[in-house]
Structure formats: C-alpha cells, structure tokens
C-alpha cells in the first residue's frame, strides 16, 4: 500500500495521536485562559443543597469536612469555594475539619482565600479544626464534645480562646455538615453522624462517586448532593458567582465534544478504507 492511494477521508482514520493531544490540550486550555463560560442548568439535587444552607438563620454554624487531597482538587475545590461564598454572604459561621491529612493545606488555602474576599475574621467568623486520626471514632466523639478530640485548632490555639467556639460543643450546635468527599468518608458521615445524631448533611462528591451516593439523597439521609465539576458549576450559578466550575465545565464539555468528533472521524476513515479494500 503506498501513500498516494489513500484518500483524504481515509487519512482521517490514521491521525497521529499527537494531533489529538494538541487539540485536547487546546480545548481545555482556551476556555480556562480566556474565561469562556458555559450555561449551566441547575439540577434538583444541587438546588436542594443550596436551599438547605440558604434557609439557615444568620449566625448558624456550618461544618465543612475536607475529605479529599490533591488528586480530586480540580473537582472539589470549586465546590468548597462556592459553598464558602454562600456561607460568608449569608453571615454564617464556618468550621473546617479534615479527615484526609493530605487535604489539610488544600482546604485551608481555599478557606483563607474566600474569607479574605469577604473580610471575615479568623476565630470570629470561621475556623479550621485541622486533622485528627481516627475517622469514625473522631466523628462519634464530636457527638458529645468537639473538645474531646480537638484540643486546639489547626495551629494549636485552644478552642475556648476562639470567640465563635464558646457555644459550640457538639452536633447540636452545628446546623449543617457539608462533606466534600473523594472516598469513603462520606459514607461514614451518613451512616454514623446522620444516623446517630440526626445531623443534617449535604454531600459534595467527585463525578465518579455521584451515582454511588445518590441513594442517600433518595432516602432523605442527605439534604442535597453536589456531584463533580458540573455540580460545582451549578452551585456557582446559584450563589451568582460563576467561577472555576463554569470555566472548567466549558473545558469539560468541549473536550467531550472533541473526543466524540475524533471517534466519528476515526469511523469515517475506517469505513472509507474498508470500502476501498472491498472495491479492489
């Protein structure tokens, strides 16, 4: 087979993969670099999460659990920021807690960034508990007294010296727990904390996990579910602050479309080649 016989259409089946890499890179790069956005439709699961927080009276406490690390950061960090914006906008108090030790710096970075935007004060409007090993045991012991596990905050400051913590002792004092999950910790939150303490919960999870935790929403064990970058984008739309979720969603959509276009091109090339070979 020599090159001259191959028609343009057939070449479509033999594109060097580096062209594919380049185009995928570009369709992800362009929306991010130029801030292109995508229109997003809000799903009921995310709306319900938003409403749960939106209904809270001023001064209520929201606990956000950072249960992810760098690998899931692209999906869950926009969620964290959108929820923090919502909380600070409504003058709710925020407590961050970590069950993945490696997520500690990531969560703290997001918290400080948004708090600065809203001019919030550490210890008064928000605080970070940090990480203690023990997973379920930590969750359960916080049901009686947070201080029985967290003697101090992330920097070791005693909890009682933080003004906002004066009246916060256990789940009775926390309005909603938001779990941002990349693993099984979300299941523990629901199975232990929601089940035993009737704690209101919202879960934000990676796209891969969304289908798995959906039954919790159906069963009413969680008040809302935010799934993947798409869910983050929806939440951003609700808090009226389109940010990375929207941009990321544009990249996401275009990348999907491009992959499908390549599949179509590949098939055109394949059928052309087959037709020629049959003709011979």
């Amino acid at each position, binding site marked *: 087979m020599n090159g001259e016989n191959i028609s343009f259409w057939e070449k479509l089946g033999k594109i060097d993969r*580096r062209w594919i*890499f380049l185009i*995928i*890179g570009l369709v*992800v*790069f362009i929306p*991010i*670099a130029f*801030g292109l956005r995508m229109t997003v439709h809000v799903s009921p699961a995310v709306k319900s999460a938003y409403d749960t927080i939106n209904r809270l009276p001023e001064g209520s406490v929201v606990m956000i659990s950072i249960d992810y690390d760098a*690998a899931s*950061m*692209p*999906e869950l960090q926009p969620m964290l920021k959108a929820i923090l914006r919502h909380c600070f906008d409504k003058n709710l108090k925020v407590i961050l807690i970590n069950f993945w030790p490696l997520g500690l710096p990531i969560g703290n970075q997001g918290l400080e960034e948004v708090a600065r935007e809203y001019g919030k004060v550490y210890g008064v409007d928000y605080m970070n508990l940090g990480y203690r090993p023990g997973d379920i045991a930590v969750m359960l012991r916080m049901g009686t007294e947070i201080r029985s596990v967290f003697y101090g905050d992330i920097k070791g400051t005693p909890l009682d010296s933080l003004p906002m913590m004066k009246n916060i002792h256990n789940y009775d004092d926390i309005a909603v727990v938001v779990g941002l999950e990349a693993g099984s910790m979300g299941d523990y939150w629901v199975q232990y904390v929601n089940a035993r303490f009737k704690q209101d919960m919202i879960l934000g999870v*990676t*796209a*891969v996990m969304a289908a798995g935790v959906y039954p919790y929403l159906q069963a009413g064990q969680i008040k809302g579910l935010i799934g*993947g*970058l798409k869910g983050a984008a929806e939440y951003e739309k609700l808090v009226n602050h389109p940010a*990375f979720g929207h*941009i*990321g969603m544009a*990249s*996401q959509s275009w*990348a*999907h479309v491009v*992959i499908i276009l390549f599949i179509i091109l590949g098939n055109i090339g394949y059928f052309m080649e087959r037709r020629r070979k049959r003709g011979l």
Partner: protein
Amino acid sequence: MHISTNPWVWIAAILTLAIYSFLYKDNPFYKFAEHLFMGLGIGYGAVILWYNSIIPRLWNPLAHGTSPSRFYLLIPVALGLLALSIFSRRYSWLIKYPLAFYMGAVTGFSVPVSFEAYIFEQAQGTILKHSMFSNPWLGISNIIMFIGVITTITYFYFSKHHKGLLGKSARVGIVYIMLAFGASFGYTVMARISLLIGRMQFLLHDWLGIIK
C-alpha cells in the same frame, strides 16, 4: 498577569511541563522528572512503610510492650530475615519459607472474604426483590440486569464447549460485557478531563497568574 515569585511553584511548574513533554516524545526533561520521581517514590515508600508497620507493629510492642505474647513477633522477624537469604547464592531457596507463609495467609483470607464480600453481596443484589417491581419499568429494568448477570457468568464457564444454549448465553454475555465496558469508559472520561483542568489551573493561575 502576576507570575509567581515563589521558587517552589516554579519547581512544580517545571516538573509539570517536563512530564507533559513526554506526550510529544521521550526527552531529557522527562527523563529527569522520571528519575527524580522514582527516587522520591522509593524513599517515600521506605519511610512510610517503616513508620506505619515496623515501628508500631514490631518495635513498639517488643520494646515497650508487656504482654508475653509479644515474643511471637519474633517469628515474622525470622521469616523476614529468611527473605533476605536471596542475597546468598547457596541459601536463596530459604525465601520459599516466607513465601509459603504468605501464600497460606492469602488463601486463608481470600476464601471467606470472597464469599462474604463478593459472591453473597452480588447474588443478593441480583435476586429480584419485591420493591424492584414497584413499577413496570423498574421491573423490566431489573430483569434486563438479571439476564446480564447470568449470561456474563456463563461466558466464564470454562469446562464445556460454548455450543447450543450455553453458547448462545455466552454470546449474549459478551454483548452485555461490551455494553458495560463502553459505559464505564464513557463514564470515566469526565473525571480524567477534570485532572487536566486541574493542572491547567495550576499553570495558569498559581504559576503564570493569567487567570484569577
């Protein structure tokens, strides 16, 4: 544009680009990142392993423990030392002892766990429950799924010719498997693109400061 002035961000960015350069072709930058990565990985692994297993499970009980049963721990130490016999040409066969223990332990664990965690769990999920017929569409869906389970199992039937009914069932099983694999593949695309988005964000935001 606010390019980062933090040298660590620069290191991270350069390593990121070094790995991506592999997409074009192998080159010294990738080789650099690769060797650095492997070196870090083995050092990291050694530290983690030492501090997560040897110190808490061996050193602490032996050095600070009081229970007499702690001396049983000398058995795995002996087995572990036998594993080092591989350094000797003459006695390298001694490695078979720790391996034999490993194999026994593996089989011991995997047999009951396979029943409990996989076979029963999956079988129970497949048996159609009353609630699965709460509406006709759900009922049909569950029957479609049930056929998927059964025909897939028949595909893994090894000791008979795949002819007749078994052959037909196994054939349907392959179709199901292909449908499932396609769905899994398509489902994962989104998460994988997210990873690239994350790296782009790092390069454009943390490093180059092009986006807010």
